[in-house]
């Protein structure tokens, strides 16, 4: 077998890329197995230490926050619910609104599409005060609904679904109609199965998006019961010594490693469809 120079170069670039991604994670993991004093004294560690069980046990079970009542485990659950809610609703709503835009040629379909598209330019951070006002007027602060709802509209996903639906030949719809399918059945029996790879891809994107939200949950929640993982990263594991807050670095590294697990799991489970969804449209 002859290996070309260009192939070797490509592999070198890829390996470098992988290292670039993996080394910080490894550093975090290795550091999370030492105790805080070692890290503060010697910096981040490359080799493994002996504090793994202690640190992780502490992270999962210690009660933190002002009220000393919230645990990291609770925050993981909150984040998971928030991300799951956002991803699920975003996918459902985008798929359905794209369906309406493509298949129901109502009068203002095109302007409405562009209106949806323009919201890409207005992310939540820009409209955070009006959004907060609305949610608090509705009495939804400190609730999962309040965490999820303002984030479920998605121009990006609507756009991708729209582009995909447009590639589906008209005859398929016509044929289905003659076979007695109404609009609802066409959506469920045709568009959903045909776009399942797309749905998986969107779900992953949106899950990670929801999981990594910081500003919105920070503003939205006053009760620690609704804290999320990303918020916790800043707040939790700070030790007070006579009014001075000191970070507990080792536990924080353990916390960071744990916080990566849910999105990684989602990617691992859905990756088969996810990759298909990105590289091909099944027809």
């Amino acid at each position, binding site marked *: 077998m002859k290996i070309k120079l260009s192939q070797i170069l490509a592999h070198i670039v890829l390996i470098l890329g992988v290292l670039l991604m993996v080394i910080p994670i490894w550093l975090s993991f290795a550091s999370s197995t030492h105790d805080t004093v070692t890290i503060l004294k010697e910096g981040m560690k490359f080799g493994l230490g002996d504090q793994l069980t202690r640190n992780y046990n502490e992270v999962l079970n210690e009660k933190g926050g002002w009220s000393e009542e919230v645990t990291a485990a609770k925050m993981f659950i909150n984040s998971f619910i928030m991300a799951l809610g956002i991803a699920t609703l975003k996918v459902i709503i985008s798929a359905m609104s794209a369906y309406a835009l493509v298949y129901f040629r109502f009068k203002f379909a095109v302007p409405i599409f562009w209106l949806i598209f323009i919201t890409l330019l207005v992310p939540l951070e820009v409209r955070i005060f009006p959004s907060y006002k609305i949610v608090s007027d509705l009495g939804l602060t400190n609730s999962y609904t309040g965490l999820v709802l303002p984030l479920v509209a998605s121009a990006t996903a609507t756009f991708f679904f729209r582009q995909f639906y447009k590639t589906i*030949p008209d*005859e*398929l719809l*016509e*044929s*289905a*109609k*003659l*076979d*007695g*399918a*109404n609009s609802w*059945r066409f959506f469920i*029996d*045709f568009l959903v*199965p*045909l776009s399942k790879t797309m749905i998986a891809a969107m779900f992953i994107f949106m899950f990670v998006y929801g999981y990594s939200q910081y500003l919105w949950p920070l503003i939205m929640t006053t009760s620690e019961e609704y804290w999320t993982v990303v918020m916790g990263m800043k707040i939790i594991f700070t030790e007070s010594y006579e009014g001075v807050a000191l970070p507990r670095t080792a536990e924080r590294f353990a916390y960071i490693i744990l916080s990566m697990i849910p999105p990684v799991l989602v990617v691992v489970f859905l990756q088969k469809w996810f990759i298909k969804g990105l590289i091909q449209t*099944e*027809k």
Partner: protein
Amino acid sequence: MSFLELNKVTKIYPNGTKAVHETSMNVENGEFMVFVGPSGCGKSTLLRMIAGLEDITEGNINLDGILINKVDPSERDIAMVFQNYALYPHMNVYNNLAYGLKNRGISKEDIEKKVNEAAKLLQISEYLQRKPSMLSGGQRQRVAMGRAIVRSPKIFLFDEPLSNLDAKLRIQMRLEIKKLQQKVGVTSIFVTHDQVEAMTLADRLAVINNGLIEQLGTPIEIYNNPKSMFVAGFIGSPQMNFLEGELKNKTLTSEGFEINNVTSDFNGPVILGIRPEHMSQTDKGLINLSVDLVEQLGSDNLIYGEIKNKKDFCFRCPGSQIIKKGSKLSLNINDNNYYVFDKSNGNRVN
């Protein structure tokens, strides 16, 4: 009252294209009707209005005694076979056939029975578990037919279903469709731009031009008695020869010869039409052809040549006759089998 009645049906697309003009026709129960015409003449539009896939701008369509203008396509009990088959790509063949039945709330056992029957009829039983992407063109064609048959609809519509197949398969499927329709006996409308398909399949055919039915009749009626130059030129292969001429007091003068006692009172410029197969060689014939080209088909020879000012004049003779390029032939028209058309509007005048 006929099974399917079109009454002054007109279609104007939103962009202003007038695709079908005030078309009226009847299709009887069990009949195989073919719409034939050049591409863009409005055949598909007419068919799609019957299916309910296009709105009817004006006029009425009645199916089985019911006005269906406003009936949703899913309620019309019509099955259609599309040019690209439009099989459901994510369902296997079984589910492709079963889908329409499921939507009608038929029980599982009945569905299975019907699907298996249709599959047997179409010889696709072996492929029931395959996805359409794993089938050849001909097999897809059969699945598309099966999907139509399995529902035993009131009427089958076919929109150029054979045009994606290669020539050999096309002829084979043509035959099978005809046989199948005779066996199942369902009223069918078949759209094609291929006049051979039209002639071979139709009980009756409608020749359509520019959104108008030019002529409606059995294939033989239309072949023997075309009402216009368009129909005469469209039906028949090789195409009818058209010669310019002048008709005066029942005498027709054209490209160096005369025909007397034409059965027409028309006077003025005309077009004379002669089918290649309606001539034979004689000693002192009417038409003198100098041969440019000979196409030997085996059973027949097609001779192309020049008569006076007309090039590419075609004459058909049995394949046993040996005719050389460059030779001169003398031809007569058999049994007064010629057609005279008014040059100004193409209408038949004899």
